[in-house]
């Protein structure tokens, strides 16, 4: 385990914990952004530059903004909005047991010890070519999904506005 990895991983996990545990929702969202950025750093370490920068562009630039807007629009910034849950321990227990299971599996598996094979830079050109050849069907489906999601989001938000008038 190298030092950069340790720093980034620690940052990612720590901010993820903060994102799930802070009272103020905007603070949660901001911690979440830090998690996303940390993940992008991990991707870069894994030589996945394209995915790493896409992660920043999409998550930091778009998804987090959406979340923040939703928080503001639903007036959830005030902590009073959220009463303490009745049974937080059940959820936490489930999560811890799940983690233990996975960690045991990972540590036991021989795959985990595998070292990375040397490789050249991933060219964006090849990635694009693959998208247009091998993965053209998923790409089309994705385009359809995005269009549908956009239309759906717009219609959901619009219908209610008219209904309230």
């Amino acid at each position, binding site marked *: 385990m190298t030092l950069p990895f340790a720093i980034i991983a620690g940052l990612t996990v720590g901010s*993820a914990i903060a994102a799930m*545990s802070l009272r103020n929702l905007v603070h949660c969202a901001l911690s979440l952004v830090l998690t996303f950025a940390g993940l992008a750093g991990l991707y870069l370490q894994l*030589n996945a530059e394209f995915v790493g920068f896409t992660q920043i562009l999409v998550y930091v630039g778009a*998804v987090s903004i959406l979340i923040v807007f939703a928080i503001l629009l639903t007036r959830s910034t005030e902590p009073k909005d959220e009463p303490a849950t009745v049974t*937080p321990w059940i959820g936490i227990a489930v999560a811890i047991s799940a983690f233990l299971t996975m960690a045991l599996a990972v540590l036991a598996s021989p795959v985990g010890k595998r070292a990375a094979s040397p490789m050249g830079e*991933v060219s964006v050109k090849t990635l694009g070519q693959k998208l247009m050849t091998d993965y053209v069907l998923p790409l089309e489906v*994705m385009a359809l999904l995005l269009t549908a999601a956009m239309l*759906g989001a717009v219609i959901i938000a619009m219908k209610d506005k008219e209904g309230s008038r």
Partner: protein
Amino acid sequence: MTPLSGYLLVSALLFCIGLAGALTRRNAIMVLIGIELMLNAANLNFIAFWRFSENPETMTGLMFAVFSIAIAAAEAAVGLALIITIYRHFRTANVDQVEEMKG
């Protein structure tokens, strides 16, 4: 170089943090954030397994991650639109208080 297990452990941790959050928090937005975290943990797995695979040139994991990010973005947009709609209707974003689902 960090071995694969390091990335997998981080991924597992993130997944479980997201899970815990989604299960314990009552605010719909926080639930969504938890789900986003879990998705990202999965993404990290894809990338890590791709990088440590025998033949990274095939780019399968990478492709999967790209698609996954796109789906996550769409999911977030629709999910948040729903939350806002629900908030407008019920005046709350708390999932427990939103019980009746008649329009």
